[in-house]
Each structure stands twice: as structure tokens, then as C-alpha cells.
């Protein structure tokens, strides 16, 4: 069973914007994939649908085989705890310290304080911010804030990591380092979906790439071949091929 699958999903925002149109794909357990497309193509919307931050207008989104729109009020928080989300606009608590921001998912899960301290420090270490744990968020640079968001997303060891342009504010060196971190997490079993503009990075990593255009998946390319031309699989409209 796939971890995530979209079946004929459409999303229309109030006001009439059709952000997604008949999207079909699935993401296997342990897979690491990239989501690309122009600005406004619907990448953020697709990620938000998985984390139940938005509800689909049509079709269904399955997480672990269950239709997420049918989850009860109590089950929604449980799903969100299994999904780590790195937001495009960070979504940090600006009146708290770095440490408290990263600790939030663990506090909610009710872990022992000693365990929380250990895990938060480990996550901050992984994104290279251990020295800044006592700083307030507004005192951080844009890239540092982004890394706090990454630490918060990975601290609870979610089974699915959704990243919305996680390296958008970072210099090439740092972004390569963080991509390496995502690869390591993926090797340890985390399923990862990353929305990004950075085609060069995808080229180097040689992973599956989904491309959105005007709310539809126009390319689903499993791997790239370094020696040949780009080989795109043009999808016919219909159910996802990964099932």
C-alpha cells in the first residue's frame, strides 16, 4: 500500500481559483520525490492537502490507505503528528526561543522533558543551529529561520516529511548540505516529498520528479539518466500509475 495517493483530486479555492485539477499520483513508503513547477502551479496546495491543511474539492487523498477527508476531529491531529511539514513561510512562533519552537511537536506528544531536550538538541545540531538554541526567532536570518522550521519538522521523527521549498533562502553550499540531510533521513526510512525550483539539485540527486503545470501533473519521471536526454513520461489523465 502506498503511503500517500491522490485519486482525481481537484482543489478550487473560494474566489474561483482552480489550484489543482484531476491530480493522480502515489508516493510509496520510503520514497523520496521532488515536486516542481512554476510559481502558482499548485505545489503548496498539493502539500497542504496531504497534511489536511486544506480539503480537496473533489476526489480523494489517501494517507496510509485511509481517506483523510473522512478522518474525525480527533484523528486529524494524530495524522499531523505523523507528518512533518516544512512551510514555505516557516510558520515559527516569533515570541519564543529557537529551542521552544523546535520542541513544540514533542511537547504536544507529551514526551518526557529530558527526552525533549535531547531530541531538540540533536535536531538543531543536524541543521547546524545548536549554538543558537536560546535565541529569539526574530533575531535570526531568513535562512536560519528556515532551518529552525526544518528542525521542527524532523524532530518528532515523522513517517512522512513534506518540504515546501526548504532551501529557497539558503546559499548553494548550505542547501546541498540540507539536501544531504534529507537523503540521510530518507535512508533511515522517512518518506519525503520536496517542492522545489532547484532543478540542478534534482539532477544531481537522481530522484523521482513530479511536475505540476496549471494544477495538473504533466510529468512523472522516476529517475534521470545522466548520459541521455531527459526522458519524460507524459501522463495520460487517469488513475496514478504507482499503485
Amino acid at each position, binding site marked *: 500500500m502506498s503511503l500517500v495517493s491522490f485519486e482525481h483530486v481537484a482543489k478550487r479555492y473560494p474566489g474561483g481559483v482552480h489550484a489543482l485539477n484531476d491530480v493522480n499520483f502515489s508516493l510509496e513508503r520510503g520514497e523520496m520525490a521532488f515536486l516542481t513547477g512554476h510559481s502558482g502551479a499548485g505545489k503548496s496546495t498539493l502539500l497542504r492537502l496531504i*497534511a489536511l*491543511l486544506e480539503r480537496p474539492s473533489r476526489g480523494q487523498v489517501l494517507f496510509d490507505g485511509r481517506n483523510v477527508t473522512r478522518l474525525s*476531529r*480527533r484523528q486529524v*491531529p*494524530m*495524522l*499531523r*503528528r505523523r507528518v512533518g*511539514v516544512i*512551510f514555505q513561510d516557516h*510558520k*515559527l*512562533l*516569533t*515570541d519564543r526561543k529557537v529551542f521552544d519552537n523546535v520542541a*513544540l*511537536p514533542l*511537547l*504536544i*506528544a*507529551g*514526551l*518526557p*522533558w529530558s527526552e525533549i531536550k535531547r531530541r531538540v538538541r540533536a535536531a538543531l545540531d543536524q541543521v547546524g543551529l545548536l549554538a543558537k538554541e536560546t535565541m529569539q526567532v526574530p533575531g535570526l536570518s531568513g535562512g536560519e529561520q528556515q532551518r529552525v522550521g526544518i528542525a*521542527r519538522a524532523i524532530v518528532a521523527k515523522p513517517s512522512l516529511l513534506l518540504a515546501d521549498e526548504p532551501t529557497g533562502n539558503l546559499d548553494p553550499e548550505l542547501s546541498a548540505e540540507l539536501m544531504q540531510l534529507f537523503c540521510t533521513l530518507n535512508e533511515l526510512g522517512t518518506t519525503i516529498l520536496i517542492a522545489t525550483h532547484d532543478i540542478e539539485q534534482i539532477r544531481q540527486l537522481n530522484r523521482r520528479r513530479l511536475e505540476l503545470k496549471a494544477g495538473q501533473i504533466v510529468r512523472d519521471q522516476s529517475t534521470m539518466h545522466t548520459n541521455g536526454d531527459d526522458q519524460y513520461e507524459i501522463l495520460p489523465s487517469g488513475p496514478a500509475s504507482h499503485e
Partner: protein
Amino acid sequence: MSKERSRTGLRSGSRAWLRRHAYSFFSSIGALVRQPVVSMMTISVLAIALSLPLGLYTALDNVRELSRNWERLDSISVFLEPSQAEQDARRLASLLSTWPQVLSADPISPGMGMNELAGQTGLDANTIEPGWLAELSAEANPLPWTLEVSPLDDIDVAALAEQIRQQAGVDLVIVDLAWLQRLDALIQVFARLVELLGVLFGAAVLFVIANNIRADIQSRQEEIEVMALVGASTAYIRRPFLYSGLWMGLAGATLAWALLIGGLQLLQGPMQSLAVTYGSAASLSAPPPVLTLSMILGSGLLGILGAALAVNRQLARIKS
């Protein structure tokens, strides 16, 4: 084996629940401390609102206590006919004191009566011409022999008065209970008023806290959204606000109590000088601890209730 595992799973689950509660507990205190001025102002408003019914209740309680003392001092004045002499008065006094309803019966001579009258009206030997009083009592004292009868507690004073009136040589029996009854009725009216005010100001506590929490939620909408995004349940988001309501209720009522104690302390001096003029030692008593405690706890509960009202409305609005 699997039973064992599920039991430890349950135990660690309830431990996580406890820890979540502890984190909410501290975060609610953190929120109060982070904006000390706002918290202090709200708590002061609550304290002032609560101190009014509490103060009135205390005043009423003290008046009630005083009136109980007056009732005990209450006695029946028996005026004998002018023809009755000292030995008649003494005979009647010893007869009355054998009655089961009577605690004591003391004869008062016309001279003593005159002195007492003079004392009560503020006339004494220093303020009036010397010799005038003696002259009056020796020659033209208009007062007859009188008996001061103290009834036992809890008897029908009116019936006793009637019985005394039928004795030979008795001219007039005076029982002035009317003003005590009036005082009693007045106290009851005020007691009802205090109850009413208590309910009104309890409602005020509820709404002040609800409004405060509503503003708090609005200013922390971003935080609530982020918490929901990382998997906080509604109950988890709600909890710190309920704690805030509890803290404000408890602190407001405790401060109201402190205000009252301060007020009583300030009134103690003047009250003492007033009591001296009545020749009795009166002191103001604070409300009983049980009442104080239940007021503080009740205010805390109202705080939780107010917070719950606000949180449920606001969270429903945010979710939709």
C-alpha cells in the same frame, strides 16, 4: 505477554497525558507572566468587583452579630404604681425571680432610676448644677419603683409581659421589641441584596474573564494555527486558556479578600472608639475561612467557565 505490553502502553499513555497537562500548566503561567500589566489590570478589576459583595456580606454579618448581643441585653421594664413602697417592690421582685421564664428581677429605686436616666441622656453632676439632681430625687422625684426583669432566652416575651401586667401593684410594663424586629427585617432585606449582588458580580467575573481570554486568543491566533499545524488537538490548544481563566479567577478573589482584610484593618480603630461610647467592646470580624475559601474556589471555577465560553467560540471561528 501482549496483555503486559498493552498495560505498559496504557501507563506510558497516561504519563504522556500527565506531562502534556504539566506543560500546559507552565505555559499558562508563562503567558500571564509575559504580559504582567494586562494580567494585573484584569485581576484588579476582578478583585474590585468581588470585594463589593464580599464587603457588604461582612458588614451585614457584623451587624447581625451586634444585634444578637442587643437581644440578649433586652429586658422588661416593670413600672409599679406610685403607691408601692420599697418592700412591695422587693416582694414582687423575689416572686418574679422564682418564675421559670425569668432569669433575674431587680428592683430599682426612684433615685437609681433618676441617675440612670441622667446617665443615658448625658446629664450628670458635672454638666448640671450641683445639688439639683439630689434635690429632685429627694423631694420631687416623679419616678416610681421599677423592676428590671431579664427573661430567659427563647421564651415568649410578650406572654411574660402580659403575666407580669396582671400582678397587683403593677402600673406599666414596657417591652420594646419593635425596633429589634425592624432591624431583623432590614437585615433580611440586605441579606437578599447581598445575594443578588453576589450573583451579579459572579456573572461579571465570568464575562470579564471571557472577554480577556477572547482578546488573548485573538492576539495569539498565529500561535494557535502553528500549534494546530504541528498536530495539537483542540483540547491541547484549549487547555492553557482554561488555566489562564482559573489563575485570573483565583488571583482576583484572593486580592478581593486581601482588600477586605485591609479595609477591616482601617475600620478597626474608628469602630473601637464607637464601641467605647456604647460601653461595649466590639470588634469587626472577617468572613469565616470556609466562606473565603469557597469564594476563591468559586471564582476560579467561574474563570474556567468564562475561558471555556470564549475558547469554544473563538476556536470554532478559527477552524471554519
